[in-house]
């Protein structure tokens, strides 16, 4: 009998162990919000899948600090960045001249670095070729002679340690002001002449199409920006085969390859997955039987997924806000002193710019839906608290006294008399919050929370207006729909007696 039990237990243990072993490892490659990073992120995702992992790509992380933070905290497992960026932005103030020094410094944070992938994507300064020719500008130091030139830089370049402030000091450039703008807009501004120079990546596909002159970095300001794969050390234990697969890219992508890939996506509008898959196929890393891992999302499927995500962000944050703000509104109405504090605080929250609020949330809540929901929740508080407060305090004194004089206890007065009478105003507050929420939820695209904002932000960095509209139009329609739903809900929730017109 005992033997039998032990056999069963051992069997169960083996079975459980097996089940565990068969579970494919979860790998989350990341990428920053620009085309090249997106393509490389797709390559990592495909390679991880081919190596047997269950891989999901967390794309469009806006900015180095967000991507780096996500990697260190384990919200993503790997992504591609550049040695210059790592030295200046991730490990600033440390002298790490050699690749080994850099590798050791990263290891202290639990991050591993591959050998260079082959291409470098240096920062460069570019101008329209005809204008550069006219002014005789070839090198960055030539800019000194033309203090009237107007600069427009990406926000990241504007305040990066290896960006504009350092460049200006290094070359002693006379230009004092530079405007911050989206990369895609900078090209247009160059065309219209509203700026004369901008920051470029040397693998940028648009250098050719916009006929730009890349200025030589004659005083060697910009460091080397070799593309390298960064991954978490724990990935080596968790999924060694995935690490091996990813490192197959070492030394395999030339600068020409990268420019080509970028132009396929930016100019020919090929999906990033497609460009990534074709390239891997060329390298022999994607065999015909691996084609099943190449999942190109159709427009309908994408719209559906984004709609679900968008509704999820808006609905969860709104529900949470109702649960919290309604009691706060009631409290404010009953305790005016406390109410002043509550309404004041909610008002201040409302004035924080939404992007700033989102970014503040990241250290606490990471990337993805959580910080977006938290930010939307905070924005929804004010309209609901304020309208609940207004709805309750607007009830005429004789009516409140009549309810009290009947001998109803406080809770019954609130539930049966005051809340129904304030229903219309409260509902209007919830409606305002909901509509604002649907619009503001687009910012979720900024921190990898999905939703229609994903299309808007992708469209912005790809300079693809059609894509922006594909995000903006559904957002507007959804907002209208939400408004309509609330107007219908009013018929159910606002008592008939409050909706009737007085008899003549």
């Amino acid at each position: 009998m005992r033997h039998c039990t032990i056999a069963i237990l051992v069997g169960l243990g083996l079975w459980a162990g097996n089940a565990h072993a068969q579970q494919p490892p979860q790998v989350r490659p990341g990428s920053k919000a620009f085309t090249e990073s997106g393509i490389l992120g797709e390559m990592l995702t495909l390679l991880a899948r081919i190596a047997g992992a269950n891989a999901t790509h967390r794309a469009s992380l806006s900015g180095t600090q967000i991507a780096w933070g996500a990697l260190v905290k384990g919200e993503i497992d790997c992504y591609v960045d550049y040695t210059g960026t790592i030295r200046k932005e991730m490990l600033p103030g440390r002298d790490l001249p050699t690749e080994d020094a850099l590798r050791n410094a990263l290891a202290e944070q639990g991050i591993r670095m591959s050998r260079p992938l082959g291409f470098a994507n240096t920062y460069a300064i570019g101008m329209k070729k005809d204008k550069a020719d006219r002014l005789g500008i070839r090198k960055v130091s030539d800019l000194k002679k033309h203090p009237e030139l107007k600069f427009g830089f990406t926000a990241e370049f504007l305040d990066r340690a290896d960006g504009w402030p350092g460049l200006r000091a290094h070359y002693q450039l006379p230009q004092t002001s530079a405007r911050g703008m989206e990369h895609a807009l900078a090209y247009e501004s160059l065309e219209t002449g509203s700026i004369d120079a901008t920051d470029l990546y040397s693998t940028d596909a648009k250098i050719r199409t916009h006929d730009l002159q890349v200025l030589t970095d004659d005083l060697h300001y910009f460091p080397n920006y070799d593309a390298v794969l960064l991954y978490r050390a724990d990935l080596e234990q968790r999924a060694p085969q995935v690490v091996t697969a990813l490192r197959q890219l070492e030394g395999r992508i030339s600068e020409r390859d990268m420019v080509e890939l970028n132009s396929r996506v930016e100019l020919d509008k090929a999906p990033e997955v497609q460009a990534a898959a074709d390239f891997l196929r060329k390298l022999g890393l994607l065999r015909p039987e691996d084609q099943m891992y190449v999942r190109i999302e159709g427009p309908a499927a994408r719209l559906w997924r984004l709609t679900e995500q968008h509704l999820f962000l808006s609905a969860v944050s709104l529900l949470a806000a109702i649960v919290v703000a309604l009691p706060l509104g009631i409290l404010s109405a009953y305790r005016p002193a406390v109410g002043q504090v509550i309404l004041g605080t909610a008002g201040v929250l409302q004035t924080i710019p939404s992007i700033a609020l989102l970014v503040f949330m990241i250290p606490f809540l990471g990337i993805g839906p959580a910080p977006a929901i938290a930010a939307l929740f905070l924005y929804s508080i004010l309209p609901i608290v304020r309208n609940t407060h207004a709805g309750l305090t607007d009830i005429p004194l004789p009516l409140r006294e009549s309810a009290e004089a009947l001998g109803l206890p406080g809770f019954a007065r609130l539930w049966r008399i005051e809340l129904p009478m304030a229903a219309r105003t409260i509902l209007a507050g919830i409606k305002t919050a909901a509509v604002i929420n649907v619009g503001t939820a687009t910012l979720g695209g900024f921190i990898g929370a999905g939703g229609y904002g994903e299309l808007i932000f992708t469209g912005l960095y790809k300079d693809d207006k059609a894509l922006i509209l594909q995000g903006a139009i559904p957002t507007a329609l959804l907002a209208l729909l939400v408004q309509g739903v609330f107007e219908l809900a009013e018929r159910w929730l606002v008592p008939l007696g409050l909706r009737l017109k007085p008899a003549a």
Partner: protein
Amino acid sequence: MLELTGVCKTYRGQAALQPTDLTVLAGKTTVLLGPSGCGKSTLLRVMIGLVRPDRGAVSFRDTPVTPENARELRQRMGYVVQDGGLFPHLTAEGNVTLMARWLGWEQTRIKARLSELTELTQFPADGLARYPVQLSGGQKQRVSLMRALLLDPDLILLDEPLGALDPLIRSDLQADLRRIFRALGKTVVLVTHDLGEAGYLGDRLVLLRAGRIVQQGTLTDLVQQPAEPFVTQFINAQRGPAL
């Protein structure tokens, strides 16, 4: 029925009610009378506990009214305000039967009580399903009175119940109120600034001025033995120059 001793109330440094003693006799209609701002409404709201006096005591049927028992005691009082104080989200019936439903009365008992009240106040049965916005001023006051009478209270308090009505409807309702009060034999306290109404409905008049009781008594007492010149002045002002 109701005993007030030394109650006073100050709003923002302004004395609304000076220390006042008053006894409301059971089965009689007491009218609180006086010009606007004399404290008559404050006095009424002290009686039902909507206003807590700064000092002094109120006792209802020999029980001191405290914040703890006020709510329970209010269920034995009925309260009617100027515009009826009907809850706009409830029908006339909903307003009248609110407390019965809250107290968990059975449907049959509620229906029976409702038909007694509509008969008593001569309220049209088809008006019960209407909402306050669909009712006339006089109908609203009848609904309000039914609501106040629902639990068969010991004491009915009315704050200018007819103040906002047209003269014709007003005189109709005055007659109905007198009939109802007589029929029920209830203790009633009514606030008005109208001397005619006070004389017509009240057994006992209490004239106030600037938060102080000037004189108590019947209309005849006030006319024939005015306690101070203000009493005569108030009466003459209401009679008008023609009389």
